[in-house]
């Protein structure tokens, strides 16, 4: 069992977490959004091999956060509360 660090609750079992998507994939704003932009937001993914910045949710406390991970070694590099482009 791997432990993931919730920025609010500390290290918890991986089974308490759910993957949410790419960090930085921000919903397009405005009335006129081109089809390709919408399709990109909804479907296209970076899916990097190596370091990834991802949105996760800790289902126990219900908080979303950003986690940096290596997708090959599964090593967690950092986890932090949402901010910047994902500021609530």
């Amino acid at each position, binding site marked *: 069992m791997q432990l993931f660090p919730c920025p609010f609750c500390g290290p918890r079992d991986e089974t308490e977490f759910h993957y949410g998507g790419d960090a930085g994939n921000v919903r397009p704003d405005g009335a006129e959004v081109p089809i390709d932009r919408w399709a990109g937001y909804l479907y296209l993914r970076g*899916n990097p091999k190596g370091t990834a910045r991802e949105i996760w949710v800790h289902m126990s406390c219900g908080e979303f956060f950003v986690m940096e991970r290596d997708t090959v070694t599964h090593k967690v590099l950092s986890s932090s509360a949402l901010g910047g482009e994902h500021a609530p």
Partner: protein
Amino acid sequence: MTRSYSALSLFKEGLAGQTGWQPAWRSPEPKPSYDAIIIGGGGHGLATAYYLARNHNISRAAVMEKGWIGGGNTGRNTTVVRSNYYYPESVELYGLAHRLYEGLSKDLNYNIMLSQRGMVSLCHSTIEMEIGARTVNAMQISGIDAELFSPGDVRRVAPIYNFSPDGRFPVFGGVWQGRAGTARHDAVAWGYARAASRLGVDIIQNCEISDFIIEGGRCRGVQTTRGAIRAERIGMAVAGHSSVLAGKAGFRLPINSYALQACVSEPVKPILDTVVLSPGAGVYVSQSDKGEIVIGGGLDRIPSYAQRGNLPTLETVISGLLEMFPVFGQLKLMRQWAGIVDVVPDSSPIIGESPLPNLFLNCGWGTGGFKAIPAGGTLLANLLATGKHNDISRPFDLDRFASGRLIDEAAGSGIAH
């Protein structure tokens, strides 16, 4: 020199001391240019090479494999062959694969050990039975064999299932496909490789693609660990690594890569002669010809490129298995492994030209690529030869994500992948 495999050649070679056998495929040095290059020497890539040479007479072609052929998901799946899908587009696609599988041993002169022992997808409630009936109706209307099983029918094909009244996953019936079954996965890769090689296709192992050659906005070849190789058209069939190659080509795909685990028990005497899937337990199981119980389940829930599984998922799968078949509690697990699968939001593959012209895609099969190998190969070969879709591949183009014409088999057939 023995070229063709038959009972007679086996007998003759026995008398001759097994001295006349040739390597099943050639291992030539890569040429500087080809009519077509296929990236990925798994089942789909090798099948593409074979159909390119056989159906389209293009044998100046090469398969480039970074490791050894059949060493990715082709060697890591649970060998199930079936075509029990819901939407007409999927029925055409998987139906084609299923029909080609049925003639494949003869076609390739290589025994792929197809065993059509049938598969039952269990229904654990009256509601699931209604969905099961809907699936069976859809399949029958599309001309695919399917039968709605009663609890008695399930008891007949899988008598060792846990039918006790306090079982966690009671059986209300099931969806039966009699033509489904298993095939020898390595033989599929090796058979296609041998047949393609005999038609003149070069199979280049230990040759990794480091970059694409892009000129005038079109793909003109690949840079590899063994030098630059140019080609008129390039196809990729690299499953879980599709996004990595797409990144080198300058575009993104609607794909997340996940690990999918499987495991086998020690070999035991015949006890289960069909494939049983329990959506409730999230487990499917069959017994291999060697006697091992072959166990598969759902995806690991963490995006990953590590070809190994996480323990919590394995625990879920094994506990589900023991609910279904308590008798398997006596077995020892012998091996456990994982492959990296390319999961698409609508659980249907992506077949067509990529955003980089001259580069064609065969990816997004998720957890269900093995059963589709003959179709994936046929359709990518057609694209590489003609540059155009046919009626079967057209609905699976990448453009469905912008147009919204998704083929959502996760919702349609209720099969997790």
